[in-house]
């Protein structure tokens, strides 16, 4: 009973959280040493040199610069070490390779909506398989939220207006807290959910047990036709627009001479702000869909375009 109150007695539950725990331990030890030294010295001096105590006060240290230089450089070197350590772990945490199991997360006041590629959606909960990295693509519909799983030592803000990818991986099955860590209004403290990590077999069973809604990509395909995208991008209309088959993940040459990789963010930006990155040798004709599609519809469109990646044009 008592043990569970000891901070970090339970180690982090993902490959990176082990590194973070180690870093935390390192920081704790270093600070404890400094603190102990300092308190010892202060207590010692206070006791020995209290007024009226006949301690030897001759030969005071007058020249101070070499003391100053030595503790300046000592603290500098320690800090440098901590900086490098912290930074290297940080880069691993936020590494987000593509081509993984993508789950969409939409944050809004005051709930987390998550959506699996197969169309299974959840509210304030997220089921994931253990032992396998999962890539989250997160978007916010209103204000800034922050996706925080303490057990994984992982957190990232979800800023409206852009996608944020985040990779999570859990080692052990169980139920873990999901918090919103960036203040977002009235029910900020109730914007909490649960991460349910399951064995892969259980997870696939869970997926199939969910209400069989249509997969995201096919819903996206329907939207694609409803919104009239297929008129130009379908290749049969009078207006010539870039074909989308096999687009996802490939480099795209732009009219200003640069190239971008067609990732989630690029596709999203192209739907909302089509003329900011025009594909080379095409006219900037596409209208903006800003305000015409919701974040959730956008996610479906992106999923649809991604699903075309396999088709070769």
């Amino acid at each position: 009973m008592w043990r569970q109150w000891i901070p970090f007695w339970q180690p982090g539950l993902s490959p990176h959280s082990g590194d973070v725990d180690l870093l935390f331990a390192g920081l704790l030890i270093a600070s404890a040493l400094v603190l102990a030294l300092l308190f010892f010295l202060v207590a010692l001096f206070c006791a020995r040199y209290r007024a009226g105590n006949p301690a030897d006060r001759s030969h005071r240290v007058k020249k101070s610069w070499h003391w100053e230089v030595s503790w300046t450089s000592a603290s500098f070197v320690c800090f440098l070490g901590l900086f490098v350590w912290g930074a290297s772990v940080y880069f691993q945490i936020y590494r987000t390779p593509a081509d993984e199991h993508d789950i969409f997360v939409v944050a809004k006041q005051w709930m987390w909506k998550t959506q699996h590629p197969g169309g299974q959606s959840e509210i304030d909960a997220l089921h994931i398989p253990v032992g396998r990295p999962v890539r989250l693509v997160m978007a916010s519909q209103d204000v800034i939220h922050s996706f925080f799983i303490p057990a994984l030592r992982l957190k990232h803000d979800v800023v409206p207006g852009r996608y944020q990818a985040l990779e999570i991986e859990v080692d052990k099955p169980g139920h873990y807290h999901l918090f919103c860590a960036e203040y977002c209004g009235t029910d900020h403290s109730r914007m909490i959910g649960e991460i349910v990590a399951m064995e892969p077999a259980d997870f696939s069973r869970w997926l199939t047990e969910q209400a069989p809604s249509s997969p995201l990509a096919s819903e996206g395909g329907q939207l694609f036709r409803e919104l009239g995208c297929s008129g130009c991008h379908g290749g049969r209309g009078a207006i010539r627009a870039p074909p989308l088959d096999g687009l996802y993940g490939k480099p795209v040459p732009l009219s200003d001479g640069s190239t971008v990789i067609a990732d989630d963010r690029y596709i999203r930006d192209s739907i909302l702000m089509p003329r900011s990155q025009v594909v080379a040798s095409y006219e900037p004709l596409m209208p903006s869909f800003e305000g015409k599609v919701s974040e959730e519809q956008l996610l479906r469109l992106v999923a649809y375009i991604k699903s075309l990646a396999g088709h070769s044009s």
Partner: protein
Amino acid sequence: MWVFIATEVLLFGGLILAYFVYRHAFPQGFAEGSRHTEIVIGTANTAVLLTSSFLVAWAVEIFSPATTRIVTWLLVGAACLGLVFIALKGIEYSREYDEHLVPGIDFQFAGPLANGVQLFFIFYFIATAIHALHMLIGICLLVTLATICRRAPTTRHHTALHSAALYWHFVDVVWIFLFALIYLPGRSS
């Protein structure tokens, strides 16, 4: 006084950072927005301000009990040029209003670059409004000093004049940069 000017530099600094960030994000929108500003008025206003600054510098240079009359006139002249600036600015604002380019009140801009243009005009109005506010304060200062100088100029007034002049020149410098940032981009294409 220079400490105060350092404060002012950072006040505009925040705005300029916002400008650069968004110009970086929307290069074409900003160029497009800039093309919709009145460069003739902008240029005329720059010339007006530079001249006004020159008059004030002149007044500071020759300040002495023997020259009160001319100093007073120089200051009044500079203040009048300041008013001309404000008047031209007013004409410019009203034209932009007619063209539906005032974000938040009446903004209509069709086309793909609407977002960038809107951000540009937000920046334009905030920056020029703050600048115009500084101009008004400066004009008041100049007029006050002109009245004082006419009556009894002393060395203390010289210091006051000096500080006011610094302020006026600073407002001028801010305008020089605003001019380059607001009116000039996108002219060549």
